[in-house]
């Protein structure tokens, strides 16, 4: 999902960079406040861990292999703000050292993968694990959150590509969301398995496990939520409605529609001609809704299969261990 340079135009790059800067600023402040100085090297090491973990390939059906992305996993292990800092670091190093993901697109990549992926994944993980108690609930929650986070990030990415005029929304959305609905299954499964492995061996290393109660995250999550919804409003909402958006209508009514500035980057596909492509957008949305139900059921099954009943209550000193 690393967007290279040239796929994001000036205005989108500027908007995503501003959103990401605010998000990372919030995360850094939060981390400084809540993390003891002892844990500061952990951020760097967790980033290096994420980088190394992304190089471990998992076998997928048909001889292909996939790898971990890990935003939701790191957020579940270290908390959302630490995860934003960690994933941002990974993205910066990948961009400048390995030329993975563009420099102009860095803001967009940070927004999608560090903010939408980690924080969105964390919010889903928290709300599901609150409903379902015990280790089983956490495994279910993380597997589901991993899938949702991947799909959400891909939708945000499709929105940015479309608002840059690089790929039309009617093609970008089905392609990105469709493939990531499959990739996300692997992501959720790996995240849950890795989490379970850590939970079994060193449960005290998972944030929130050793403390008497889970730390309050509401204010923090609200701030990220505002940022993400702003991003959605800018990049995704204009395309998600079938009718022309408000701005266009206003422009048409006021009669300056023809005066709108020529886009810096010409749309690659101004008018998409292939029949049935608009149908694909709706079909993808329906498939996503149905898919999330199926994935949730699978995640429930996974938690039930992986965690034996007697181990369910043990959350590492949280309750009765």
């Amino acid at each position, binding site marked *: 999902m*690393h967007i*290279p*340079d*040239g796929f994001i135009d000036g205005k989108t*790059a500027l908007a995503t960079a501003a959103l990401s800067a605010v998000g990372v*600023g919030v995360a*850094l402040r939060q*981390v*400084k406040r809540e993390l003891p100085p*002892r*844990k*500061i*090297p*952990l951020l*760097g*090491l*967790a*980033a*290096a*861990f994420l*980088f*190394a*973990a992304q*190089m*471990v390939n*998992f*076998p997928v059906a048909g001889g292909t292999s996939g790898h971990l992305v890990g935003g939701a996993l790191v957020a579940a*292990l270290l908390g959302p703000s630490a995860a934003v*800092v*960690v994933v*941002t*670091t*990974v993205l*910066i*190093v990948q961009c*400048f*050292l*390995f*030329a993975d993901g563009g*420099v102009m697109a860095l803001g967009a990549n940070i927004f999608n993968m560090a903010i939408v992926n980690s924080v969105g994944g964390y919010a889903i993980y928290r709300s599901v694990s609150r409903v379902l108690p015990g280790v089983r609930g956490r495994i279910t929650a993380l597997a589901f959150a991993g899938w949702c986070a991947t799909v959400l990030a891909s939708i945000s990415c499709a929105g940015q590509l479309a608002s840059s005029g690089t*790929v*039309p929304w009617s*093609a*970008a959305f089905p*392609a990105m969301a469709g493939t990531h609905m499959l990739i996300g299954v692997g992501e959720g*499964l*790996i995240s849950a*398995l*890795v*989490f*379970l*492995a*850590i939970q079994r*061996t*060193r449960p005290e*290393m998972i944030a929130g496990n050793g403390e008497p109660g889970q730390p309050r995250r509401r204010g923090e999550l609200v701030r990220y939520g505002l940022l993400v919804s702003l991003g959605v409003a800018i990049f995704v909402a204009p395309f998600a409605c079938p009718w022309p958006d408000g701005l266009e209508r206003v422009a048409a009514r006021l009669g300056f529609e023809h005066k709108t500035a020529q886009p810096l980057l*010409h749309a*690659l*596909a101004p008018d*998409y001609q292939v029949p049935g492509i608009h149908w694909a957008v709706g079909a993808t949305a329906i498939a996503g809704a149905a898919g999330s139900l199926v994935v949730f059921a699978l995640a429930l099954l996974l938690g039930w299969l992986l965690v034996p009943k007697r181990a369910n209550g043990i959350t590492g000193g949280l309750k009765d261990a």
Partner: protein
Amino acid sequence: MQRLPAALKLGVALAMIVGTVLAPPAWTGWFTGVAAVLALAILLSRIPLLFLGKRLLLLSPFVLGAALVNALQPSGRAQWMVLAARSALCLLTVVLVSNTTPFCDILRVLRRVQVPALLITTIALMHRYIFVLAEEAERMRRARNSRTFHRGRRLRWQTLATVVGQLFVRSSERAERIYDAMCARGWK
């Protein structure tokens, strides 16, 4: 090329990338200019061409995806070429800069442009330990390969997940030791 100040290289690279992304496709002069500067830089830096070529071939699934989308429509090819040229030029710029500039110099520039200190510390630590942890992961993989013989897919996923989990545990422990070492050396 390697001896130029990092700030200058980063500044020029950034200007080139921004210009390449923003320039309309009709400005062929700009694109050829950037290409000429890059060619000169490649000559001066003496980076093997094969290495750059390999890196360019791995451009990105995005370029392929865009090619696929554009194959479906009549006038797509020219625009795809513009897109691919843009990405390739920007990618070459970044590869050149990152291969001729020590990473700590890049960090120094970032510090000078007021990137928050916590972020810079994290980046520096990550850069230092990427290779250590990658080696550790490789050692763990080799150890597992020499000990496990089963073929089941389920077990393979589970052992791999255990390896990754163990890698997290080891890196957290290493972080604790690093903190002690940093304090011992007078880190505030």
